[in-house]
């Protein structure tokens, strides 16, 4: 008969092979992947919001419908009249009409390539961006003033949607945090189930080892060590799978950057993601390993309570 290998040092008490755990790394990998998505979504939303808000600070957008139609007074078009009025108005600076090319850039995410060139499918308003200095009139007052020049002109202030963006960002962050907690709990439950199956399978062996004077920690460490390695492996797989997908999502999100960046020239928030993406495999390996270790310790020690 072939000589059998004796139990290894790490398997001092012969419980190593006692976990029903083949699926564990894959389930944990899926959980890690979800966690990575949630985390990246939350980070991206935060970056996006900061970016938008800094661009939007003190920025007003004026929309003049039927821009080529004659203004109420003077011999100019409605768009030119409003632009001239804004350039002259105290408390405002850098009034500028967006070119058609800029406009179609802004609209591209919504209208697709049909928005390019002069073949716009809809009649576009003129869009004038202007920098409002602190203490200047608010959007409603300005709209009322401009209404006399070109009736129906709309004024949008950055601060009006800044609040909404902040709210949106907060709720995205809260959802991401909730997803992380749920994912951690699910991962812990999966580990607990695998450990319980292992305990049931080795019940007699554990009773014998317990009877020989094994401490609860001796037995729990056997399971926790294995749970830690398997969950860590799952975290690594999920962590490695996430960055390419996130990079792609980030690339799509970059499309949303165009509007504010055309006014402020700030760079895209995709630049803020890479350090996080690079660290993802490491962070998720460690987090999953810790979750696996704790879940196994708690499960085994709880189970051992039934032994005298």
């Amino acid at each position, binding site marked *: *008969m072939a000589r059998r290998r*004796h*139990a290894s040092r790490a398997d*001092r*008490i*012969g419980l190593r092979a006692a976990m029903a755990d083949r699926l564990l790394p894959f389930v944990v990998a899926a959980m890690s992947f979800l966690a990575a998505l949630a985390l990246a979504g939350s980070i991206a939303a935060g970056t996006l919001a900061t970016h938008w808000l800094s661009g939007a600070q003190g920025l007003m957008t004026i929309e003049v419908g039927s821009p080529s139609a004659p203004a109420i007074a003077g011999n100019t078009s409605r768009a030119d009249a409003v632009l001239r009025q804004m350039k002259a108005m105290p408390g405002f600076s850098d009034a500028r009409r967006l070119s058609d090319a800029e406009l179609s850039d802004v609209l591209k995410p919504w209208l697709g390539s049909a928005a390019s060139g002069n073949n716009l499918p809809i009649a576009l308003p003129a869009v004038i961006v202007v920098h409002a200095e602190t203490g200047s009139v608010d959007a409603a007052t300005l709209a009322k003033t401009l209404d006399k020049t070109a009736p129906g002109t709309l004024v949008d202030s950055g601060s009006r949607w800044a609040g909404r963006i902040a709210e949106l960002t907060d709720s995205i962050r809260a959802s991401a945090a909730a997803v992380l907690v749920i994912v951690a709990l699910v991962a812990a439950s999966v580990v607990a189930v695998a450990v319980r199956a292992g305990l049931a399978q080795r019940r007699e*062996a554990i009773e*014998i080892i*317990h*009877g020989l004077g094994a401490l609860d920690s001796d037995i729990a460490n056997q399971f926790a060590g294995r749970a830690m390695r398997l969950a860590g492996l799952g975290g690594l797989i999920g962590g490695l799978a996430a960055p390419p997908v996130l990079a792609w999502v980030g690339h799509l999100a970059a499309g949303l950057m165009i509007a504010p960046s055309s006014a402020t020239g700030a760079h895209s928030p995709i630049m803020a993601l890479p350090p996080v993406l690079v660290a993802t495999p490491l962070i998720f390996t460690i987090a999953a390993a810790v979750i696996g270790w704790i879940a196994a310790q708690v499960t085994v020690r709880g189970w051992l309570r039934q032994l005298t």
Partner: protein
Amino acid sequence: MIRFTHVGLRYGKSPGTESVALDDIDFEIPEGGFRWLTGPSGAGKTSLLKLMYLALHPSEGRIDLFGTPTSRLDRRGIALLRRRIGVVYQDFRLLQHLTAFDNVALPLRLARRKEAQVRADVTELLRWVGLSGRLDHRPDEMSGGEQQRVAIARAVIAKPSLLVADEPTGNLDDDQAERLMHLIRSLNRLGTTVIVATHNLGLVARHPAPMIELQDGRMTWHG
């Protein structure tokens, strides 16, 4: 020293279903002593031994092992005390997925002995009980007598202060039983306190020693 003081044991928790397994058990075994534990089947021998090797806690009275009242011990203290007690179970209780070598090595590995020492001690003891050729065999590849000797070796490998054997000759023929008793008596002479439960009165007659006799959970003889 082992001391039982007015020890009682009931099985079952709710008052209606509980049954008295042991009642007013009171005795003392001096350090290095030897006792037979006799009585018919169902008398309470296994129950008494389980109290002694800390697999059960008494419902009444107190038990002192090596001068320590067991009721004062926490889980860790109980585990550490168990390591000083070698137990030969009636049904061996070997780990089926481990070899004879690894089964016998368990107590030493729990005590975190050096692997080189584990190897030397286990090999030596298995040779002594005549299992040199069985080191790498699992229990299901061995005869009842061989498994019995592995169980004995595991019980004594860590040089326990107390050896508890529950009908250790039950699965053995007379010749094997004599060899086992020879092994147990030599350990006893080396200073291990020993208690052996049996209903084999011939064996008791061939190895005279003080006796605790049980009948329906009560002591009917001590001395």
